[in-house]
């Protein structure tokens, strides 16, 4: 099968095939297990970078990896093992990884460009069957060629590292759900007493509380649809309807008799109760979710801003965005200890979030009774979009950095 693959690739360039094969086999000292695309260590590519071929199956992790000079290279990793592997190139002295190739299938190879500064590096190959296996270390020496910059590596984060932060975030969410439940009770009481104004205040507070836990929506399952059911405003997919907080907003705005709104509030209360019972037990965030949601909350907000979905009947757009920002900060906070020595743009991110917050405060001061965001003057709208976009570009890094990798094995003495 391996040789078959080799032949297929070689057919296209018959005059080169023999020569190439010879060089590859010499370079790796292996005969049967070399795909044609796995170049000899130290070979030069057409773009002037160095090509290196490395085996990354659990049984031969790092074979082909040897001492070399600092600089840019095309690393081709080949999984000749029986199952998929995640592959890392690690600098054991610092623990940092400079290459992360995940889900490389059996018999598959992948080429990635990486620029290595002087140091000692080894491959780590992780699979379900064999766990994490460390390969031999090799030394990269010398200075980087002019104009080249070392690939920005990172101290890897494992799922175990994220257990604490996810737990702290879930605790924060649970506290909000408790407050949400109390607000829904207040809302019910106000409606039962026919107090429309108090009902609106309670609804508003409940809406903002729920919006703030947006980082956890993905873990709320069926309860989210009952609490915040907002069908697509064009042609809604079958079975979707307005429920929960948005339905109550519609009913409050439409001037219905307060008591007629009670059944909708009872359904909302049941959903919130159900969510509180299940959240943190059978409904929980996966370790990867926290980093993802730190940028996805505002990605959703950006889309809502573009679609007009933030322009609800109550014109709460700036308040909803402020809740989104608070939710983003809440998801980010437990990750900060991990990010401090990993995210080179953390300072910029902090400033970008502060600027977004300042822009939102300005908007809310200028429009204390709420405003339709679509009706803002161009300059104000552009500033808001720019602050949101600026924060999003930096938040995206957090998801990349906190994407958990497999644990790294100890270095053999």
């Amino acid at each position, binding site marked *: 099968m391996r040789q078959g693959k080799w032949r297929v*690739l*070689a057919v*296209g*360039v018959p005059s*080169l095939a023999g*020569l*190439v094969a*010879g*060089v*590859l086999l010499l*370079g790796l000292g292996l005969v049967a297990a070399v795909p*044609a*695309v796995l*170049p*000899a260590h*130290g*070979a*030069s*590519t*057409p*773009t*002037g*970078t160095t*090509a290196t071929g490395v085996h990354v199956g659990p049984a031969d992790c790092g074979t082909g990896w040897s001492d070399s000079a600092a600089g*840019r290279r*095309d690393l*081709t990793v080949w999984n000749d093992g029986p199952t998929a592997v995640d592959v890392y190139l690690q600098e054991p002295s610092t623990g940092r*990884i*400079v*290459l*992360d190739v995940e889900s490389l299938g059996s018999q598959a190879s992948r*080429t*990635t*460009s990486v*620029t290595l500064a002087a140091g000692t590096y080894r491959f780590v190959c992780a699979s379900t069957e064999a766990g994490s296996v460390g390969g031999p270390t090799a030394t990269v020496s010398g200075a980087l060629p002019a104009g080249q910059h070392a*690939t*920005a*590596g*990172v101290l890897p984060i494992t799922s175990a590292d994220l257990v604490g932060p996810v737990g702290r975030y879930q605790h924060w969410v649970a506290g909000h759900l408790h407050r949400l439940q109390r607000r829904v009770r207040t809302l019910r009481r106000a409606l039962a007493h026919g107090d429309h104004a108090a009902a609106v205040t309670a609804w508003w507070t409940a809406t903002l509380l729920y919006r703030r836990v947006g980082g956890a929506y993905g873990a709320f399952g069926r309860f989210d649809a009952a609490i915040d059911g907002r069908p697509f405003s064009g042609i809604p997919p079958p079975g979707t309807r307005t429920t929960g907080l948005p339905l109550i907003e519609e009913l409050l705005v439409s001037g219905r008799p307060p008591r007629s709104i009670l059944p909708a509030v009872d359904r909302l209360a049941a959903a919130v109760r159900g969510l509180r019972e299940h959240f943190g037990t059978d409904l929980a965030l996966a370790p990867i979710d926290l980093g993802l949601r730190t940028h996805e909350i505002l990605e959703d907000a950006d889309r809502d801003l573009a679609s007009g979905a933030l322009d609800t009947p109550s014109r709460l757009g700036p308040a909803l965005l402020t809740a989104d920002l608070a939710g983003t900060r809440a998801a980010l906070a437990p990750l900060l200890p991990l990010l401090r020595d*990993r*995210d*080179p743009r953390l300072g910029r991110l902090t400033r*970008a979030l502060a600027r977004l917050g300042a822009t939102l405060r300005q908007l809310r001061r200028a429009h204390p009774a709420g405003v339709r965001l679509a009706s803002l003057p*161009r*300059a104000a709208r*552009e*500033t808001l*979009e*720019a*602050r949101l*976009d*600026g*924060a*999003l*570009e930096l938040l*995206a*890094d957090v*998801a*990349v*950095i906190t994407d958990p990798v497999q644990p790294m094995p100890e270095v053999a003495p």
Partner: protein
Amino acid sequence: MTRHAPGGGTGPGTGRVTRRGLLGGAAGAAGGAALAAGAGLAMARDDTTTPDEGDLRYSADGPHQAGILTPVQRHACYLAGDVTTDREGLRRLLDTLTARIRALTAGGPVGDDGLVRTAADNGILGDDLPTAGLTITVSVGASLFDRRFGLAPRRPARLVPMPAFADDALDPAWCGGDLLVQVCADEPDVVVHAVRDLLRATRGDLQVRWRRDGFTSPPRPSGTPRNLLGFKDGTANPDVSDDALMDRLVWTHGGGGEPDWVEGGSYHVVRLIRMFVEFWDRVSVREQNAIFGRDKSSGAPLTGTDEFDPPDYTGQSGGGAIRLDAHIRRASRSGTAPDQRILRRGFNYDAGLDAAGNLDMGLIFTCFNADLERQFTAIQRRLEGEALSDYVSPFGGGFYFALPGLGSGEGGWARAVLGT
């Protein structure tokens, strides 16, 4: 397909025309074994190296920006944006644009992203960027010199907001902008790649105000490309290989009321002109010819036989073949003012339908000139009331100033515009 700068040379501002080799420089010096192994890798990459052959590249560096005298490419995207940051942010924005323009117009392998960021490149051109004649031209609007950045004293002397001319129906949403970025290339994916790259790199500091995409047609069957009214458009352009002529007609110079930093720039006029093509198609070709003053089929003036025959405007009282309200007679310079000529560089646009279901297409009229009042505006005023005005409607665009070339001064665009 490689095209060369006008006159086969390297005219000012057009940049060098280069051809990226099949093998990079470093590989040529490598030994036999290394070369063979390199070829082994190339084997798997055959499909990416082949298009490199003849990939057309214009350098972004030089005394003038590319995309002005450069032969017009097949595809374009015009982005007008507002600067949404402070003075220091504007400096960062201009530096970022400079770096991205240099990288994009150089092409080649994309950088590696490391493990602390999402991929910087959007990937739609693969890992080895072709250039396909890419040029990215940056211009500034009059609004950049308002109070926000303290730049009022540095405004190019002739840069004003575009006024509404007599036949205009300007929509503010389609006018102006602090910055105009004109992205042109021969392949549409290269344009889109550059647009996404530029907007991502400047996100937070720049918000797009309006955008319009354009294209030019190949010669049908020969000569100057046709616009969407079916007429050859741009026949009377001045010769871009004549440096002295370009110095008079296109490039701005410091002194005489202009700040020094404008040396090597150019006033950049963009007019978004809707064409009522359904109406136009119901007009007889005889009438269309009279409206333009040219023969639709050949492009020849009605007083000549071939496209490039000079028109004869004698018979001013109406006795001549070219009507008094014909487009080319109104637009042509009078014999006494030869320096009125402009360098046109327009693109057709085709943007779907209007609200009533009519085809929304027309022209992104673009021209460069050294003096708006002496050149473009003088011509445009003569066009007011021309016969063509019933069939077209200018609705947007603006007056901009194309910054001097990237290689023209210490400190680059930020120093030029901000002065410090």
